[in-house]
């Protein structure tokens, strides 16, 4: 990699990323009144997040078992409406402990 490759690459990445983020914020400034579109925009984040999380969360760690345990911890804690930070840190701890245990046992 030359310096030029890196700078041009970074410029393209930043440019494309900014355009995808900005285009609808800058162009669609009027409020949408259509019920279907309103419902669609209300629901879309839940769908996007669900698609991004499952099943990828299971494979987000080194071994599937720690991924399963971390996922279970996240599901249970958020079912009982714990905050984002609590859920996140607990899952990290669960994965870490699970992998530690596996290393000791195997």
């Amino acid at each position, binding site marked *: *990699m030359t310096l030029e*490759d*890196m700078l*041009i*690459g*970074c410029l*393209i*990445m930043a440019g*494309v*990323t*900014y355009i*995808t*983020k*900005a*285009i*609808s*914020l*800058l162009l*669609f*400034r009027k*409020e949408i*009144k*259509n*019920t*279907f579109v*309103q*419902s669609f*925009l*209300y*629901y*879309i*984040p*839940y*769908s*996007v*997040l669900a*698609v*991004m*999380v*499952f*099943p990828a*969360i299971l494979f*987000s*760690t*080194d071994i599937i078992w*720690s991924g399963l345990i971390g*996922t279970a*911890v*996240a*599901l249970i804690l*958020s079912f009982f*409406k714990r905050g*984002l*930070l609590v859920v*996140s*840190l607990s899952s*990290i*701890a669960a*994965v870490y402990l699970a*992998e530690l245990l596996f290393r000791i046992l195997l």
Partner: protein
Amino acid sequence: MRLKRGIKDGIPIALGYFSVSFAYAVLARKTGFPIWFPILVSATNFTGTGQFVGTELIAAGAAIAELFSAMLIINIRYTLMSLSLSQKMGSDFPLWQRAIIAFGVTDENYAVAIRQPQKLTMSYLLGLMVCSFAGWVGGTVCGAALGDVFPPSLMSAFGIALYAMFVAIIIPPSRSDKSVLFLVCISTAASCLFYFTPVLNTLSEGWVIIIASVFCTTIAALLFPRKEPASDQNTSKQETPNSQNNTDIAANDDNREDLK
């Protein structure tokens, strides 16, 4: 006050980001990039998956067109998010403020901002985004500087951080709202279909997110139109009490009756 709320909401995101961008920087250094490169990318891009993939492509000597289209496909979901965010910002947001806010649109900032019950303000969004951006860049700097001495076992555990946060965002409303639960279930099913089916799993992540979420959300929006887009619409009615607006709302109510 609003700024403070934004910062407070941004802290858990910043912590999650710190670990992810840390991992990103370590990976970039391992691939052979100089210390400044991941920091520059994090400071100018502020996006997760896109940065991982883009950096890999640059390392592999990919053509400009390939880098361009990969970034576009991965990031196109932001266009949907910005569109829905735009609806929560009110029409009195000046263009230059929108241009600044646009940079801070990320999956997490969006997910947290869109959950706010009231219209979004510049100070709230700025607090939220500056806070999470600090976590993002801070994690990258630390990762680039001391990635070599970081225990890999801890790295694996950090891999789950942001996913766990997403779970915490989608599960509570699924409990209280059956239509959200339905949507989360079919979205998960669709995602698994793309993930595990032989030919379908060759599709890139960006496309899967768009196809699956647009399809599933359309079904949910048709089956369960929101009965009370109330708070948003009422405020807008007060802000711009012109006849055009009112007829639109009336027509809107008719549509809703039809859908029932």
